[in-house]
């Protein structure tokens, strides 16, 4: 009877304590696990120890059983374009690079399959993907022959929790694309263990022997890279003015002819390594030192300045000229 009474006391204490505990515990839920959380396969072991004094005054201890729980693998991934904006390309260009960053946001080492898709609505052309390349040397830039080409199904990208990897997609731009045409390309990374709706369980397939569970990302991620065509065209106009020895404009022996060559680049792209060259016409003689480029005199020698006269022809290296800009070259000849 005495014992039963004591038992009920203990019970009452417990029943009073537990609802109180649950009511206050809800406040504590604001803090959550870190980005990737505890690594998959970690064993959570719980043991408690009791100590007490027996009636003989001796201290006694008692250990509880040990509860072991394995941490499952959470399958999560994010894909993000690493380009600051649409990547400018030229029509017909090959190996045009889009950059992406793939991050394992799960808590276990996981292999990811990569897929590039370019058949997407809302753009003007479909780039043709020629390869997906892993930035093996992690320098953020595509290095042909150095970075490893990804082959679907054979060398999946394996990332540890929180690890990020730069990946490049190389494409060929269709030849017929016009200036400012855009082409979309979506890169998808999917956990090889499996993907799908959040909460999907792949029993026993987690790192460390637990289950693999699809996280909030669906265990796959996609982001879009954009190519934009920036093409340029050049128009070239040549004109001449004549000053005869008598102050008029007749073309007679001794007249000085000034040729003006105007190159105009149009479009949003630019033209590289532009050179203007012109052969001195027959029955005329080039006037030494008469070559100008953008109003500045050029020496005739092939030297540091952009202009030169050689082989009875003038030439000026214009370098790279952006769309909307004009370059003007003049030179003089005397009619023989």
């Amino acid at each position: 009877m005495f014992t039963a009474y004591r038992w009920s006391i203990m019970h009452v204490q417990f029943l009073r304590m537990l609802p109180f505990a649950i009511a206050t515990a809800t406040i504590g839920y604001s803090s959550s696990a870190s980005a990737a959380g505890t690594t998959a396969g970690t064993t959570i072991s719980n043991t408690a120890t009791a100590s007490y004094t027996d009636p003989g005054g001796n201290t006694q201890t008692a250990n509880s059983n040990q509860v072991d729980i394995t941490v499952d693998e959470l399958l999560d991934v994010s894909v993000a374009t690493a380009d600051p904006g649409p990547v400018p390309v030229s029509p017909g260009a090959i190996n045009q690079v889009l950059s992406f960053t793939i991050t394992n946001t799960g808590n276990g080492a996981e292999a990811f399959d990569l897929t590039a898709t370019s058949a997407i609505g809302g753009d003007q052309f479909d780039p043709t993907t020629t390869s997906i390349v892993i930035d093996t040397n992690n320098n953020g830039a595509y290095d042909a022959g150095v970075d490893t080409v990804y082959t679907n199904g054979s060398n999946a990208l394996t990332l540890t929790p929180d690890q990020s990897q730069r990946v490049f997609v190389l494409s060929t731009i269709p030849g017929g694309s016009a200036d400012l045409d855009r082409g979309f390309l979506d890169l998808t990374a999917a956990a090889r263990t499996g993907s799908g709706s959040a909460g999907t369980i792949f029993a026993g397939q987690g790192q460390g022997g637990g289950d693999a569970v699809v996280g909030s990302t669906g265990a796959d991620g996609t982001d879009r890279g954009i190519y934009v065509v920036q093409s340029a065209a050049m128009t070239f106009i040549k004109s001449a003015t004549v000053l005869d020895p008598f102050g008029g404009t007749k073309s007679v022996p001794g007249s000085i002819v000034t040729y003006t060559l105007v190159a105009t680049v149009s479009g949003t792209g630019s033209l590289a390594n532009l050179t203007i060259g012109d052969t001195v016409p027959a029955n005329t003689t080039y006037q030494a030192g008469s070559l100008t480029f953008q109003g500045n005199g050029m020496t005739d020698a092939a030297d540091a300045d952009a202009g030169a006269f050689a082989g009875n022809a003038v030439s000026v290296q214009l370098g790279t000229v952006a769309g909307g800009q004009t370059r003007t070259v003049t030179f003089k000849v005397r009619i023989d």
Partner: protein
Amino acid sequence: MRIFLTLLAILAPSMAFAANNVTLSSLVFVEKAVPDGAGRKHIVLEEPKSVMPGDRLVFILNYRNAGRLPASDFVVTNPLPAAVVYQGGAESAQVSIDGGRNWGTLPALRVLEPDGRWRSARAEDVTHLRWVLKQAIPAGAFGKLSFRGVVR
């Protein structure tokens, strides 16, 4: 039977005070949200083999004085597994944030920040929990202690 009784007689004097009379058992449950079919979810407790980061755990410690004599100065200590963040639920317990060297309540324990300032301890700082029962546990009595945690 005679042999058994003889054995008992030999052991009895030493067991009388030295016997491990109090048993302690540890249970860990995980909260699972189960849809009830009416668009709501019920939280049920399951004994898991495995858990996910972010899972909410309920730790239960059952003690019982299985002996015939009372046990006094009863103290239960539960080191928190490293992968678990304390989430409250044990307001009657003392906590430690330094591996069990110092004990107290969260507001009473201080943590030195990297910038040299002191702040009150928070639940995520807890490394150990301890319950100190003021009254002796009578023979045959039992009780239950609990706390909550979340998987890091």
